[in-house]
Structures are given as structure tokens and as C-alpha cells.
């Protein structure tokens, strides 16, 4: 419940923030730089006098947008591979499973970093890095789900009626996995938010001046000890709220659908 409310607040800020706070996040006011939070600037201003709240709003859009994209892409690619591997088996399964093992050999953040470096810094390569890191988790999940569900009696009973593999997947396997996928997706969403921020933090994220929370924290780092805490604090708070609420939602879903399994993916 708390999760949903927190999530709703952030989404609301991302979607309607610009309407309620129509300040240009790129507008520079040099002499008004580094102002502390006030009514005029609820989250203060940054080193060139941009309104941090306006940047926070746009950062929310960027973070959420990219995280959603990453989550969907990861689900589709990893899920499809997992379904196929579980169903087809044989050499296909062996090759894909081995590849996934190799990907899993990297700590997720390191993998995402490697990809972002390889493709050159930018939001697209950062997103691709996170997708690649997320794929094996979906793959494993779906593959084991398929293997598990295939032996379920009602799947067998449909098989006994003569149902084709495609029909089995479409009607009897895939619908059963939606809750698992959804739980996984909210974990991955939270993971993407954190990882994208981390990539931004090490300079592999989105290119300025587009505000991205992780990059904002890095830029704020230099001011943390000179008293201008608001530069890094608020974007961090945004990441925190989004990641925590996505996790809370995932956990709630897990309680509802799958009370036995534990956490799956962490930074």
C-alpha cells in the first residue's frame, strides 16, 4: 500500500509535474546559482542556477521512461528465450543456457558498465547494458517455470487432449507465469532505476544537460561538503522512493501470488 502510494506520487510528478511547475529545467540563472530550497525553488538551484525541482521532474520522466523500456525489453527478450529454451530443449537450450551463465558470471552492475563503456556513454548504451544484465534473470525464471509447468497435471491433461506446444504455451503455461513475470518485472524495474543511476554516477549515463538523477547526484557530490546538500539529496531521494516503492509492490505481488519465493535480483 505504501509502495503504491509512493509509486503513484512519483509517477504523478513525472507526468504532471511540468504542468504544475512550468519552470524550464534548462534555464540558467547564473547569479541565482546554489540557492537553498525556498518557496521559489522548492529544491534549490544548482551550480548554474537551474531550478533543481524542475530538473527533478524531468529526471523522473527520464528515469521512469528508460526503466520501463528496459523492463519491457528485458522481459520480452529474456522471457522469449527462456520459453523457447524450456520448450525446445536440446542444443538450443544448452547454448542459450551457457551464454546466460556467462552473462551471469558478471556482477550485474559491472556488466551494465562494460556494455555502456563498449558502446560509448549515453542513455541508449546504458539502457542496453541494463537490459543485458536483466535478460538472464528472466531467462532462468521463464525456463524453470516452463519446465515446472510442463509437468503439471493440467498441462499434461491438455497434452493428453492433443494440444500443440504452441497451444500449451499460449493457454496453459504463459498465463500461469504472468504473476511471476510481473513480480520479476517490478524487481527489474527497481534494479534498472538503481543501475541507471549508478551508471550516471560513474559518468556512463545520459548526456547533459538532460537531467538524470544519477548524474545529478554526481554533480551534487562536489557540493555536498560545501553546504549545498540539495543538489545531490533530492535526486537521490527520487531514486530511493522509486526503487523502494517498486520493490514494495513486487513484494506485495509476491505475497499474493507466490508467497514462497524470496528476493531475486539485487544491485
Amino acid at each position: 500500500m505504501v509502495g503504491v502510494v509512493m509509486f503513484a506520487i512519483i509517477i504523478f510528478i513525472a507526468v504532471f509535474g511540468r504542468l504544475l511547475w512550468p519552470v524550464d529545467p534548462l534555464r540558467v540563472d547564473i547569479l541565482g546559482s546554489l540557492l537553498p530550497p525556498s518557496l521559489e525553488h522548492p529544491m534549490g538551484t544548482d551550480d548554474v542556477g537551474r531550478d533543481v525541482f524542475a530538473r527533478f521532474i524531468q529526471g523522473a520522466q527520464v528515469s521512469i521512461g528508460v526503466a520501463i523500456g528496459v523492463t519491457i525489453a528485458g522481459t520480452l527478450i529474456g522471457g522469449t528465450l527462456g520459453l523457447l529454451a524450456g520448450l525446445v530443449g536440446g542444443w538450443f537450450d544448452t547454448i542459450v543456457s551457457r551464454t546466460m551463465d556467462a552473462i551471469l558470471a558478471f556482477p550485474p552492475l559491472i556488466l551494465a558498465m562494460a556494455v555502456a563503456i563498449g558502446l560509448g556513454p549515453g542513455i541508449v548504451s546504458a539502457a542496453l547494458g541494463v537490459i543485458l544484465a536483466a535478460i538472464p534473470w528472466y531467462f532462468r525464471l521463464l525456463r524453470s517455470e516452463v519446465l515446472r509447468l510442463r509437468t503439471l497435471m493440467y498441462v499434461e491433461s491438455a497434452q493428453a487432449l492433443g494440444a500443440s506446444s504452441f497451444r500449451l504455451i499460449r493457454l496453459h503455461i504463459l498465463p500461469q507465469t504472468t504473476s511471476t513475470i510481473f513480480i520479476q518485472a517490478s524487481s527489474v524495474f527497481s534494479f534498472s532505476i538503481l543501475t541507471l543511476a549508478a551508471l550516471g554516477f560513474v559518468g556512463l549515463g545520459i548526456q547533459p544537460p538532460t537531467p538524470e538523477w544519477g548524474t545529478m547526484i554526481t554533480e551534487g557530490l562536489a557540493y555536498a561538503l560545501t553546504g549545498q546538500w540539495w543538489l545531490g539529496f533530492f535526486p537521490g531521494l527520487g531514486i530511493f522512493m522509486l526503487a523502494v516503492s517498486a520493490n514494495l509492490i513486487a513484494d506485495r505481488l509476491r505475497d499474493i501470488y507466490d508467497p514462497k519465493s524470496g528476493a531475486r535480483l539485487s544491485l
Partner: protein
Amino acid sequence: MINFLLARIGSAIITIFGASILAFVILRAVPTNPARLIAGPFANDEVIAQVTSQLGLDKPLFVQYFDYIVSFFAGDWGFSYSAGQPVLSQIVQRLPASAELALYAFLFAFIGAVFVTVLVSFLASKWLDRLLRLLSFISVGVPPFWLALLFLMVFFEQLGWFPGPVGRGPAPGSVHTGLFTIDYLIAGNFSGFATALHHLALPALALALGPFGYLVRLLRANLLDIVNEPFVTVLHAKGVAPVSTHFQHILPNAFLPTLTAGGLILAQLLGGSVLVERIFVWPGIGTLVIDGILRQDYAVVQAFIMLSAIIYIGVNLLVDILYGYVDPRVRRS
């Protein structure tokens, strides 16, 4: 057991090779020519071409890969242009700092998580359980680098309880392990030990919180599963006191899966915490890698990626073996 070991080692080796190909391919996609970086700004094309062939960058990719792997396992991990040093010696230099930080972070996370979770589950208080759950979510959701920043702002800047971002503090006089706390203890210098610990505390805590939350969630879920197992009812029916039931039976059962997760976490931490090290100016591998990334010193980055994968797989392997040793179901089958 021997078969089990051989099989695990075999598959670990295959995975490492797979991972090395992946790492190699990814990093060779980089558009910039490292030769230009090494040659410097006033170099002409001739010099750049010389350096390129010196690095073997003009060879086909698979030859480069082969060369890299051969020299990697021979101990030549490349040359860092940004430090003017072989990568291996840089990593060896910085490994103890990262290892010490990782070790303490892991201990904080693991011991903390096990202690708190088991206590809360034993007390069976709904209220405490909710609190713990909330705490675990908060800790999993906090970006570690932001947390590090908050720690500094609160515990250093405001309260002055801990040292600021100044790295590991003074080094001990004699070096045995490279882990300051241990070295101080060996030297019998307890105030030095305290200082080293003082410096370790904030970064280790910042690093520990995420894994702590993760372990709490995992252990809590496992404990809940085990508590509902029939054998627990049997134990009660035997007249076993709740304390022994909880700590001698439920905990060992729930602990085993946590061990695996703990291994993964330790492996990730050992690979250097890229994020927290940077903020606390910890002279570890994480800092090295960030510098490597920013300066596009890819010999460093590539060696680090390989190293992370190897540590990750190696620790996993160790945990599997340990698991096999601890869990009778795996041991004897």
C-alpha cells in the same frame, strides 16, 4: 564428492571462458583507438601507427583475444596508460584495500542480517517483523552512493563522529596481509586497529546496507518456509524448547540458502565497490576502475571485468563446495 567437485570446476572454467569472450567483445567495440591515448596529444600518425602495432591492435580480433587470454593467465594483464604501470601490479596494490572493505561490509551485512532476522522471527512480533521488512526494503532501495553521501553529510559533516572521505587512514608500520585492521592486530597496535576500523566503518556500512536488506528478505522468507515445515511441528511434539527449535533446527535449515546468496554478495563486494569507494576515496579497485573508465584506460577496465567474473565464479564454486559440505543432502548424494 570428487565427481561433484570436478563437474563444478569444469563448468566454472567453461563459464569463465564464455565470460572472457563476452568481456573482450564488448570492450573491443570501443570506438576510440587506445594507441592515440598512449601516444599523447602531440603525436603524429606515424607514432600512433607504431603504438598500434606494438599493442597488437592491427591483428584480427580472434588473434587479439587469444593473445589476451594467454597473457592474462600468464600474469600479463596489460599496461595501464593512465598510470604508466602494468595493470596487474596496480590491481595487486589495490586489492587489499578493496578486500578489507568488502570483508567488513560483508560481515556487517551477513552477521547483522542473520542476527536481526533470526531474533525478530524468534520473538514472533508482528510489529517488529513489519519494521524489519520495511527496513529491508529501504536498504535494498537506497542507491549505495547516495547513502554514502548522506552518511558523510550526517556522521562526518554534522556530527563529526567518523572521519571524512580520506581513504583508509594511516597505514600500519609493517605489512603482512595488506588489511590494515589485521596488520595492526598482528603488530599489537590496538589504537591503530581502532583508527583503521573507524575509517572503515562508514564506507563498510554504506556498502553493507543493500546486501543486508537483501539477506534479510531472503533469510526471512526461508525462515517462514521452514517454520511451516512439518518437522518443526514434530520438534514441538517432542517437547523441544522454542529456543532450541529455532536456533538448532530452523536456523541451520534456513541458513543454507542464505549461504549461497552470501557468497554471491561477497564475490560482488570483493570485485570492488565501484560506487562507494569513489565517494570515500578508498584506494581500492573500484576507484581504479572509475578512473579507468573516465580516462578510457581499457586495459584496466578489461582486467577488472575479467577479475570480477573470475572472483564471482570462484566464490560461487567455493560456496557450492562449502554447501555440499554443510548440507547432508548434497554431501552424501
